[in-house]
């Protein structure tokens, strides 16, 4: 301990950590001082944001009559894309597997997802890099993405798809293209994407042949002409200015909107984008629904919501808020075994432990999911992995049905905002659902009304 000339010391017995210069901040700066660039990571944001957990269902009691929880039928069939397409997508459950690239994921992981999706009667989605042949062979309903990079894009593959999805952006990093670091650009992946082996691939964010919403209308028309107006065209967007984006996409002719909130994950991204761009999934969904209502397109254009959907309860809440289906990515990977306590020594090599791993970008996935390393890939046994994903999808479906029955609904799509209450003030304001224990929503209009009522006038002047 250092003392002054009088023998006094300024040091405290208790160590005080700065609220600004926290240990993670210090570590972040020191790491960037070594890297000379932004930090990269896989997975999703670490931030706490308003989520579906901030809502709760208020099931039937005396004022409503529930359905028998374990016996009565509860429909889950979902139809997407009937606005212009001759053959809409019909799913057995309101769930889709989100677009994840063959490249970010191993071929085995894509195959397992395809197999599970077929058993569950749902769709999978391609990703940057085009169609994985094994996945296509497994799955009945495939959504083929049209991405800015057009890596691996093949019109023949588009014609094999049950829907096309024009990707404008993703929730993990709206406004920025994807990244696939060189460690994952193997010979096979490089050939599929027409890239040099081992290159740090940074995908473009703008499409090569269109820029704005008017152009998108023409692009959608081209896709329809290429597929003879048979399949639906989805438009996927990272959640940012959702209200405006929704209107523009609908005007451009989208059948289905896929809105990806900021909790959406990725195989690789600068962490600054993950933590500081986009808006939360629940907020995005509410904004999208209001926007569709405003232009009288709710029901005509479907909403698929994604970003941090982790179970059937989240899905049920999303449906109650107006989504037609949810899309899952990370949850499906976790069902595959992501972050499972296996091969502990390989987690250690990455400097993490099971439950904390977000090193998809390195290509050193200990459980063989987000890797192109032949030895690591062998760790994912496809049959077992597909079973696990199917079981998870089944559990999600049962949870959705459970919530719907408890709320007296015989179709999960009949869930509505009135079936819920908000547990936090912010979720109440975002969703327009009353805070539990109250009968009002804290909106500017509501405040004005109450003030007016308190003043006893109720006139517009009081507002």
């Amino acid at each position, binding site marked *: 301990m250092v003392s002054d000339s009088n023998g006094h010391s300024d040091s405290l017995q208790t160590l005080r950590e700065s609220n600004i210069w926290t240990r993670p901040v210090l570590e972040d700066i020191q790491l960037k001082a070594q890297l000379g660039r932004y930090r990269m990571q896989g997975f999703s944001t670490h931030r706490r944001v308003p989520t579906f957990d901030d809502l709760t269902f208020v099931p039937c009691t005396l004022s409503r009559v529930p359905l028998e929880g374990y016996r009565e039928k509860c429909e889950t069939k979902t139809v997407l894309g009937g606005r212009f397409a001759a053959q809409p997508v019909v799913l057995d459950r309101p769930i889709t597997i989100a677009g994840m690239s063959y490249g970010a994921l191993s071929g085995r992981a894509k195959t397992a997802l395809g197999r599970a999706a077929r058993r569950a009667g749902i769709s999978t989605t391609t990703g940057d890099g085009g169609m994985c042949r094994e996945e296509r062979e497994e799955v009945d309903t495939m959504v083929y993405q049209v991405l800015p990079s057009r890596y691996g894009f093949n019109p*023949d593959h588009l014609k094999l798809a049950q829907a096309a999805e024009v990707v404008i952006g993703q929730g993990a990093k709206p406004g920025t293209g994807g990244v696939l670091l060189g460690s994952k650009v193997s010979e096979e992946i490089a050939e599929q994407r027409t890239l040099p082996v081992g290159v740090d691939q940074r995908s473009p964010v703008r499409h090569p042949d269109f820029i704005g919403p008017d152009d998108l209308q023409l692009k959608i028309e081209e896709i329809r*002409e290429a597929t003879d107006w048979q399949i639906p065209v989805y438009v996927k967007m990272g959640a940012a200015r959702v209200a405006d984006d929704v209107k523009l996409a609908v005007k451009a002719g989208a059948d289905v909107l896929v809105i990806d909130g900021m909790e959406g994950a990725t195989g690789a991204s600068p962490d600054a984008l993950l933590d500081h761009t986009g808006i939360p999934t629940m907020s995005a969904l509410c904004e999208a629904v209001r926007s569709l209502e405003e232009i009288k397109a709710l029901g005509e254009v479907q909403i698929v919501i994604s970003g941090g959907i982790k179970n059937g309860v989240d899905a049920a809440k999303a449906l109650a808020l107006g989504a037609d289906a949810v899309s899952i990515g990370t949850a499906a990977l976790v069902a595959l075994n992501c972050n499972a306590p296996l091969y502990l020594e390989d987690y250690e090599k990455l400097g993490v432990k099971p439950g904390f791993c977000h090193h998809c970008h390195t290509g050193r996935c200990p459980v063989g999911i987000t890797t192109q390393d032949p030895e690591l890939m062998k760790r994912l046994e496809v049959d077992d992995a597909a079973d696990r994903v199917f079981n998870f999808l089944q559990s999600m479906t049962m949870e959705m049905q459970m919530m719907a029955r408890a709320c007296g609904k015989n179709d999960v799509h009949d869930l509505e905002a009135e079936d819920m209450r908000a547990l936090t003030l912010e979720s109440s304001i975002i969703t327009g659902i009353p805070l539990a224990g109250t009968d009002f929503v804290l909106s500017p209009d509501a405040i004005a009304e109450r003030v007016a009522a308190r003043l006893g006038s109720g006139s517009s002047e009081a507002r």
Partner: protein
Amino acid sequence: MAQVTSAVATLDCAELETREVNRTLKQLVADGATEIRVRNPAGRHSLGVAIKANVKVVFEGPVGWYAAGMNYGPHVVVQGNCGWGLAECMMDGRVEVLGHAGSGTAASIRGGLVYVRGDTGARAGIAMKGGTLVVGGSVGYMTGFMMQKGSIVVCGDAADGIGDSMYEGTIYVGGSVASFGADAEVAELASEDHAFLTQTLAQFDTDASAFDFTKVRSGRRLWNFSTKEPELWTSAL
């Protein structure tokens, strides 16, 4: 509507919707037409897309956006100008435009040959994954942006940022270059380059020796993250 004379068919689209034009085109191909002449295209968008056949299609007039996009094999001739995204994502085949073309010409093509007798807009040959683009006139800014493979031949001038962030591929410019894009570098022409240019341009009655071509290729310094060239990385897109 469509008139078929032996293997040559004529399709007048004056009274048709785009959807009917494309359906009829595909039906004519299925019926065995080897050449289809399309009258009154009138600048419609998305004409002649996703055709997978060895057939010649001649548009007797200007076409709009995405003409001959996603094709696999046909020989398409446009007797006029065309809009953005000409032949985008073409897998194979041949497209010839006798006028000018808009931006994103030959975007992300993976094979075949695209020829524009006049000028092209911005980002011609963007993200090309193979094939050849030949421009008789000049090209707009950022031509060859993020090009991955294939060749671009420009007989006229190139605007700013040519070859920006190319992965691979080769661009030849016969006129002036306003500026090079990030990581684009000039290379010396080898005998194979001269042979390629002579052979390619001869198809369009153009003498390659009349030009002093500049060869542009990737410097490969953006292939992998590096802290050694911070200026390059902060200027790169």
